[in-house]
Each structure stands twice: as structure tokens, then as C-alpha cells.
């Protein structure tokens, strides 16, 4: 059972993982590598370990590639490269279950949010909640949305959930919540989606959001009843 973990052993995994290469940059783009406290500007052809986090400033972007995934992160976004991966639905289910495992025992019902801020904008006819902001948490959600839009929906949900936990204010942004709840619903995770919509109902919503959430809940309730 016992062993000693040497520093070299701990870092071996990161060295061997497939790094991302910076293909293009525009504007202000920086990265935080590993557990480093500092952000450093990144440049084209630079190699980024998977435990890096990349951030783009307003009207900036960066294109990265690891041979399997080619991804462009738009402006005002943050993305942990560990989330830039394909996940199976089963892995997503495990990741959602992990949230409870992280909590200390005797978890009580989460308190309702007091934040009444409303974010979100309509982009290309699709409700996309990406916002221009300097808020790090919102930037992470922006990054998560872009993950979803690139097809990595499961990873996007995991990224969003992590963001909600670490930046609680982002949980009050109804547009993001509805966006990721819709993804859960679209993936067939009806119970998780229903729980999410139920929590969203307690947020301050616009009339259209209220209607959308209610419609989704009714639809999911029917599905769950038929189960």
C-alpha cells in the first residue's frame, strides 16, 4: 500500500502527455502552465503541456493543435487544456457523480443564489451566452461554450461544472445555466437536466427564460414519467 511518490514520478505523466502546439494567435493571449502562479504570453509554435490554462483577451484568439484536436479559442475566454478532449457519455456521467463525492458528508441542499445579474446574448440566431468580460469565471464559461460548439459537449459540461464550483457567481448566470442544461438534456441525461432546470428556476429569469425552462421541465417530466 505504501509508497513514496517522488517528484519525478508525479511529473512524468505530464511530460509524456501529448502537448498542444500554438498555431495562431491574435491579440492578447497568455497561459498558465501547471501549478505556476504566473501567466505568460504565448507565441506561435510554442508547446503547451496539457495541464496548462490558456486565456484570451477581448477581441483576441488563439488556435492550438495536438494532432487530434484543432481548436480556436475566441476572445474573452479561458480554457484548461485538460478539458480539451473527447469524453464519452459514460465518462460524463462519472464526472457528474464525482461532484457529490468531492463534498464532505451530510451535504445539505444548496442555498439559493442572491446574485441577480443577467448575462447572455443572442449569437447567429442561437442562444449563445458568450459575453465580453474580464471576469475570470465568466471567461471560463465562455471557453466551455466554445468547447460545446466544437462538438466536445461532454467536456464542456465538466468544464462548466468546475467553473460553477470555483466561481460561484457564475452559477447565477441564467443564460449559461440554461445553455448547459440544454446540453445535458440533449445528451439524454434527463434527470441531471431536470435537476439543473429546477435550480435555474430559482434564479432571476426573463419571461422567455422562464417559459423556456418551464417547457423543458414539462418535456423532461413526461420523459421521466414514461421511464
Amino acid at each position: 500500500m505504501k509508497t513514496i511518490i517522488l517528484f519525478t514520478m508525479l511529473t512524468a505523466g505530464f511530460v509524456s502527455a501529448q502537448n498542444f502546439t500554438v498555431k495562431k494567435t491574435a491579440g492578447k493571449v497568455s497561459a498558465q502552465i501547471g501549478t505556476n502562479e504566473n501567466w505568460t504570453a504565448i507565441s506561435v509554435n510554442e508547446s503547451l503541456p496539457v495541464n496548462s490554462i490558456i486565456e484570451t483577451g477581448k477581441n483576441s484568439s488563439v488556435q492550438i493543435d495536438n494532432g487530434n484536436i484543432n481548436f480556436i479559442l475566441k476572445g474573452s475566454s479561458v480554457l484548461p487544456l485538460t478539458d480539451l478532449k473527447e469524453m464519452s457519455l459514460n465518462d460524463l456521467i462519472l464526472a457528474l457523480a464525482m461532484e457529490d463525492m468531492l463534498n464532505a458528508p451530510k451535504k445539505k441542499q444548496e442555498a439559493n443564489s442572491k446574485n441577480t445579474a443577467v448575462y447572455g446574448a443572442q449569437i447567429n440566431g442561437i442562444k449563445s451566452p458568450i459575453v465580453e468580460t474580464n471576469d475570470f469565471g465568466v471567461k471560463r464559461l465562455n471557453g466551455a461554450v466554445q468547447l460545446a460548439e466544437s462538438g466536445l459537449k461532454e467536456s464542456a459540461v465538466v468544464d462548466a461544472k468546475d467553473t460553477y464550483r470555483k466561481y460561484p457567481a457564475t452559477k447565477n448566470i441564467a443564460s449559461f445555466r440554461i445553455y448547459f442544461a440544454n446540453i445535458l438534456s440533449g445528451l439524454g441525461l434527463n434527470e441531471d437536466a431536470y435537476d439543473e432546470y429546477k435550480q435555474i428556476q430559482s434564479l432571476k429569469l426573463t419571461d422567455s427564460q422562464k417559459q423556456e425552462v418551464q417547457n423543458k421541465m414539462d418535456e423532461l417530466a413526461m420523459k421521466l414519467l414514461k421511464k
Partner: protein
Amino acid sequence: MLSAANIKAQSSFELSGYWLPGNSSTTLLNSFESNPSSFSMLKDWGLTMLYGSDFSSSVTSNLYLISLSKRLGNNFITARYTPGYQKDFVFNNGQSIILHDSTTQSLDSKFSYKELFGLGFSHKFSDKFSAGFTVRYFTQDFNQESVYPIFSDTLYLVRESNDEKADFWRGDIGLNYSPSDFISLSLSTQNLLTANANAVDPQISQYELKSDKGVLAGVSISPSKYLGLNLLYETNRDWQIGFNNFFEAFNGNFGIGVTAFHDKYQSPYIAGIIPAITYSTKLFGISLSGVKYFSNRNIVHTFSGFQNTGIDNIINNRYSFDKAVLTLTFTLNTIPERSVEFLDVNILNEIFPILSDHYLDKPFAIAKVINLTSHVVNAKPSSKIEGLDNGKIESPVVTILPHDTAEVPFFTIIPSSYEKKKAGISYVDFYLSTTNQSPDDQSQKPILINGINAWDGKVVNLRYFIKKDYEYSMDYAKNVLSRYKSELDTMSYALSIFYKAKILFNNFVSNLVYAANPSAEADYVQFPHETMKLKGGNCDDLSVCYSSLLESVGIQTALVDYKPVNGIGHVNVLVNTQLSPEQARLITKNDSKYFIRKNEEGIDEIWIPVETTSLTNFGKAWDLGAQKFDDDALDNLGLAKGNVQIVDVY
């Protein structure tokens, strides 16, 4: 000239008839005749008396038998005194003398046969098989009168009495075998061993009880609990056959039975029957039986008849009379009635003394127990581990349905003072009690008691090592923190926990020299004071020590159990900074270095992983801990897949 008579020691004749072996417990405790191995279902002490009357021309009453029986475990001892097992013969020998007053006086011969006492011992080898032996003492008194002349001036005829004694011992062995409830078999010897003191006079010695060897075989069939059919056969071609019928009433057992017997020295072919009725409870038994012969017994017999046919049983022969016999049995049970019994006891695990209260809710042994009664029983289990417990440790009562079995868990308490370092084999005494003070049953099993540093390899149980040394850890931590009092007092209260954890870690590692090779001391964990004294340890020792230092000053920690991959596992520590997610920026700008847990009140708190084997500084240890946690627990879904587990220490 007299021919040899057929006189033998009695064999299988029983004044109360022949009963099923299993049902004789409270009716016949003394029987050497129908229970040749002399074993009984008696639980402790038993006293039996047989009192009866002979219906000859006049009614004479006798105390036939009094016996005392005692059971000692699987051994059964009986001693009996048989004053009524006696037969006297008085014959006119055909001679008479005419006295000077012209009266005549007959000359008699008196033969007296007695069985005085007997001893029996048997052992129950199993529920199916028992064997034993009996020893009995017989006396024989012979008296013959005769006259002989004395020649002098006058011819005198002198009357003379010739007395002879020829006592002897008889020893036999017997076996009882019951392969099932349906059938019971018995086998015993007759006159296997005899020790004689023969009469000197050959004229008398021919009337001694003979000791022809033989065998007695019996079979009892019980088609139901309440019915028994019995057959007894002796190699001299005597036999008995009988049936018993039982029924329950008045909190006891009623039984009726009748035995018919054939004695080749008696006529008719079925010489007689022994009807009997019994009633028995756990405390006493009473039996009324009779012996009814089918031939007329109140007739005058001749000496020549006796001489020619003899007898083969002292209390049952052609000269015996009809009888009525009352049998009284009293049982004294100083041993509590056993209501429950161990079928098996299974030790689940060796004892790890450090686990202390672990054994309060997790049994160290489980017994399979049977309820022997026809009512619901509350079994009270208790145990005592030699060398660990000062007294019996009682475990929860288990209710068991009638004649049902149940699994009974045994728990224990490890004394907080237990400090033995070395492991050793000890033993556990398990007890089962019901309503009695003394146990119904007990069992003993060996058990391994590990030393106080022994660990069962489960990370969840490292908490016991953390808690055990709180006093030392608290002194150590307070001493260290007191040196940073001014810094701690001036910083934001919200950050004080984080900085205390940092200060203690940096001090902790500054006192350590090395991290030991863990494979060399698997399943052995050092207490914090030992780690500090030895200036090193492996990941378990270092995590236990650091966690203990923090917990002792109120900083909440958890252990991260990285399950073995390719046989190599790992443990490090999580520290609860109690900072809110919004306060994360106070300690780091990198959000991959912490994660959020909800506390018991549902409030989000920042926890940070610390790699205790990084003997550098807090910052580096935090980085290493965070990298491993992010990689193994979160990114690779280790927590969800069970490869990583968070074990809270409280």
C-alpha cells in the same frame, strides 16, 4: 446326587418394562438392564426409587431399588442399591427328626440370592454413540441342615447347619448407537467379567448363580416422536418385546407401555407382561407398573423341580409372583437449562488494537447460534479476549425464533491504554447467555492480536493513528505556532488556517531527514511522535503526522487514498482552508491548485492537496499534491471510478 441347576444372574428384565432409551430420562435413571451403556439424557443429578409389592399368598412390600445418578459433561455415573433384588428359597430336604417328645422337626435348605449394589459409568462420544460399563455385586447364602449321630453311651443325633457364602462381582460393557431419531441400537455383554468366591462344599456350589457368557442385543424403533417399538434378544434365546406411546399433557409427558417377555425357563411361551404408565416433567417422574405372569404362581413347588429347571433371573423366574411397582424419580438440575448453543464461531479478522472504536460497530467474529427451545430466546453474547480485555465485553442481544439459527455478531472494545508493540497469538472466550447468569454455552478460539502500530492497509483506518497522538501533536503544533504568534495575529482571520498549515508543514519537514522505503515496513504505521523522533517515515507516516498536527489545532484534514496501481498506492493530505471560493485569490492565482467541497452546512470551502513526502517546503508540496490530485482524482475521473478516495479525518 443333585444335578446342576440353571441359576444365573439376572439379565434384561426390568420391573418397569422396557422403554425407549431417549424417554427414560425421568423414569429410569438406574437401568442397567434395558439401557446397557447406562447413558441417560439426565442433565445433572437424579434420584430414583422403586417400591413394590409381591402378590404371593400374602402381600409383601419391598424397596426394590434406590439409585443416584450424576452427569458430568458427557460422562454419566450411576450408583444403585438394590435391597429388593433378592430371591430366597426354603426347601424341606426330605429329612426330619423325631424329638423326645415325639414331635418331628423337618430339616431345611435355604438358598438366598441377592444383587446388593451396582455402579455404572458411560461416556457420550457423540449424539449418536455412547458406551459404558456396569459393575454389580451379588451375594449368595446357602444353608443346609443335617443331622449326624454321636456314638457314646447313648446314641445322640446332632442337628447341624452348614452355611456357605459365594459372593461375586459381575462386569459388563454396553454400547448404544442411534444413527437417527428413527432407530436406536444397543449391544451389551452378559457376564463378561466375573470374580467368584466359590462355595467349598461341592453339594452347594452347584446351586451358585452361573456365569455363562452371552450377549444382549436391542433395537428400538421410533416411527414418531410419540411412539416406540422395542425388541430385546439375549443369546440364551430369551427375549422381550414392547411398545411405548407418549403424549404431552399438563406440562409433562404421559407415557403408556407394555412389554411382553419370553423366558425359556418359564411357561407359557409368553411368560408374562409388564404394563406401565408414566408421567414425567423436568423435575420428577412417576411410573406405575405391574408384572403379570400368565401361569399360576401360588402353587407348591418341589425341590426336584427347582433342581431340574432352576431360574435365570433373580427377580423374574418361575417362582416370582405378580408385582406392582411404583417408580419415583427426582431430578435436580444445578446446571442451568441450556437454551442456546454455538454451532460455529468464525473469527472475521485479526485484531488491530489501534482501530479501537472500529470494533464497536464492526464485529470481529460472528457465531452461528441455535435456539434449542420451542420459544423465542434473546441470546446475550459476550466475549473476552485474553490479554486485551479486562472483563467480558457484551455485544447486542439477538432474538432467535424457536429451533431456529441466527448469526450473532461479537464486538469488542480496545482499551485506550493498550500499548503492546509486538503481535501475538491469544484466544477469545465466547459466551452465550439467556436468562441465566451463567452462560448457556461457551467456546474458545485463537486470535492474532497485532501490535499497536499494525495497520490493516485501509487508508480510512489511518485516522486512528492520527487521533491517538493528539496530545503530542497539540503540544508540538502549539509550540511551533506560538513562535509565529505576531504574524498570525496580524493577518486576516480568513487566511489564518492556510498560514497555520503552511507554518506547520515547513516546520514539520525541517525536522525530517528522509522518507523510508515503504515496502520494507508494510502494514506498520508510526505515530506522529515516533515519526518526529525517527525524523522520517513513508507516505503513511508523514501524512498521519501532518494531519495529526493540523487536526490537533482544529484544522480540518482529509486523506487522499490513491489506490494501488501495479501494486503501488499512495496517501497524501487535503487541508480545508475554510476559505470561500471567492477568497481563492488570496492564496493562489491558479485555480487548478485547489478544489471546492461543500461542508456539512452546504457551504463551499477551498481544500488544497499537500504532498507530505515532498520534504522541501509548503509551496512545493502543495504544487505536487495539486498536480497529482488534478491528474488522478479529477481529470482521470479517479474519484468516480474508485481509484481515488477522499477519507475525512473526524
